[in-house]
């Protein structure tokens, strides 16, 4: 019983950390730079498919499936996502606020449709299976593999968190916040807002691509159903609930929102008899919405919002 719960929690934690990495990417874009990226799932998909196409075991009917090592897949996923984000950024980054949101949303939907229709490369709606899990031969029980993957994810998340904290405290990070608060003032000080916005956009999207690669190598399967717009909405909910502009808030938000999603399902299945499972499921969806609304009503800046610091020396 306890090994079962532990095993489930390890699995759950892996999913949370993968979602957490995406949320950190969005936090860099929205929380610090004010870029309204509504196409998160598009970059996530590019990373996921790059990794899957490079690492999946060869099959004659597919163009890809090169069977390359895991590390190559992950690095390539980041590189390809960065390149895609840079190209997309070049044409869209001048757009402000909701205009950028509409553009990126459209691009994400297009990317999902490409994965659905470019069958020889992506497997289309059949998806790509036979994606190797890293060191699955060494850790051959599900719990052992998930534990090892959790350690890997934990280490990666720690590195990403530390690196983000570091660069956001640097002059580069201060420019991002300056742009977010008042772009005209930042430009007046001689900063190229466009360049900084593009850099933040590419860097944040690269993290989303990394998360995509991690997700498919954790699950071992990828299909276009993984990249519906609902994922974008979930990640936004995580950032807003956790606290936009705070990296710890982003990670906490991923945990809290995904826990609400999973726990509400458990609660409903415990309380509602199977004969009313359909009604119970509808209640679950209502519950999720209700909790999100309550959090926002009582913690409008998120669970741990951004610290309002005028200057680190102001209190001295």
């Amino acid at each position, binding site marked *: 019983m306890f090994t079962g719960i532990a*095993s489930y929690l390890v699995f759950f934690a892996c999913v949370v950390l993968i979602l957490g990495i995406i949320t950190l990417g969005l936090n860099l874009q929205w929380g610090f730079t004010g870029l309204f990226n509504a196409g998160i799932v598009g970059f996530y998909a590019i990373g996921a498919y790059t990794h899957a196409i490079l690492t999946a075991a060869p099959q004659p009917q597919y163009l890809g499936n090169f069977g390359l090592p895991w590390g190559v897949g992950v690095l390539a996923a980041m590189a390809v996502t960065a390149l895609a984000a840079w190209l997309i950024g070049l044409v869209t980054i001048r757009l402000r606020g909701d205009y950028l949101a509409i553009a990126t949303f459209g691009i994400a939907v297009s990317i999902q449709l490409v994965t659905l229709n470019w069958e020889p490369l992506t497997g289309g709606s*059949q*998806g790509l299976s036979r994606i190797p899990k890293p060191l699955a031969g060494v850790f051959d029980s599900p719990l052992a593999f998930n534990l090892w993957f959790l350690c890997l994810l934990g280490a990666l998340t720690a590195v990403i968190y530390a690196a983000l904290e570091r660069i956001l405290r640097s002059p580069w990070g201060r420019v991002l916040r300056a742009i977010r608060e008042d772009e005209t003032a930042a430009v007046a000080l001689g900063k190229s807002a466009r360049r900084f916005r593009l850099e933040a956009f590419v860097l944040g999207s690269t993290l989303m691509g990394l998360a995509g690669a991690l997700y498919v190598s954790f699950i*071992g*399967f990828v299909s276009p159903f993984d990249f519906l717009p609902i*994922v974008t909405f979930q990640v936004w909910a995580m950032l807003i609930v956790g606290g936009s502009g705070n990296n710890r808030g982003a990670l906490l938000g991923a945990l809290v929102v995904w826990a609400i999603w*999973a726990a509400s399902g458990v609660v409903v299945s415990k309380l509602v008899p199977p004969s009313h499972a359909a009604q*119970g499921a*509808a209640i*679950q969806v209502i519950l999720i919405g209700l909790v999100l609304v309550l959090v926002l009503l009582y913690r409008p800046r998120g669970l741990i919002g951004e610290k309002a610091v005028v200057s680190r020396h102001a209190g001295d």
Partner: protein
Amino acid sequence: MIRTALLCACLLAAGPALAQSCPVKIGGVLPLTGSMAPITKKIAQAAELAIEHINQGGGIKGCPVQFILRDDQGQPTVGVDAAKYLVEVERVPAFTGTISSGITGPIIASVTAPSKVVQITCCSTASTFTLDGRSGGYFFRTIPTSKTQAYATASETVRRGFKKTVVIYVNTDFGTDMVRFYKAAATKLGGEVIAEVPYNDNQPSYRAEVSRALAAKPESMLLVGFPKDAVTIVREWLSLGGTRNVALNNSMRTMDFVNGVGAKFVEDFFGMDNAQVAGPHVDAFNKAFEEKFKTDSKGPGVHTQYDALMVMALAMNIGKDLSGPSIKDSVRLVHVANGSPVGTGPAEFKKAGELIKAGKPIKYFGATGPIEFDANGDVTGPALVWKIKDGQIVTDRVISIEEMQALFKRVGN
């Protein structure tokens, strides 16, 4: 220290075999909300009925069965999480689900196959699942794959003299499989596919797709998709002057479709489904379903979901214990060539239980007919041609298992 560790390891290894505690749990994941929800309602009811019959018929290994059903919301991460919870925390030794192949796939890859849990689905037809060897033999389905339906459709359209056929299909694994297999079979049998037009679901209009199909000057159409979009497509097809030689797939065998388009417009349209072969076992199921839910048992996945759970329960009773490998090896023993025939309903399940206890082989005839799994975990089955007559859905004819086998030989696998 080492001894303690060994003891622990032994206890852990023996855990599932020792634990013969009541009730026996069976897990399930279905899209109870989301775009599939309208189809799922009856499927979930069929599952509920199966569990009721199993319990009235003596349960599994003398224990009552507890069915834990979770919602996947049509989202892979949600479905995988629910499946993982059922397998790890609830410790279900067997699992049924789900409908969308995009969710069944990751569940096989990351939950059931690695944990050696038997998974039987009513509805996922993606051909890769049973062919790529990833499931380790733990994945079964009671729905004939798209191939059976596609071949049967091809033989029927050719029989009815369909020429210059255009195929409009939903762009999912199901749709692409259907087109691929239909085209192969129709070409072989003397038909002709002149255009293939994919569509993406949940669009307000399909004028562009229908116009593209009509541009090929077709004399007949095969429509593969789901009822809601199909209503829109057929309306646009007819209003733009498309022919009334229209063949449909199994999902359209619902009054929602007929009434959606308007009964008089779809008169004499026909379609294919997995045959609910006539026989006492099929009637017993239909009657039980109608009595309990006050609605007919027509609809995609209803009969196959019932059989998925009945097969699972029979296999759990046949296996020496409730471990995954033992259940997996028993699944093919529910329909043995020289076994005593058993059918649907609680009394028949009880009879099967007594036969199993006496060490005798059984031969299960389910709500979809004889259930015999091939080496991949797929069923082959008879098909059924239905048509719309005076605004009602009626069975036109049944293509028997023998005819299907002959057809497969003619077309070639």
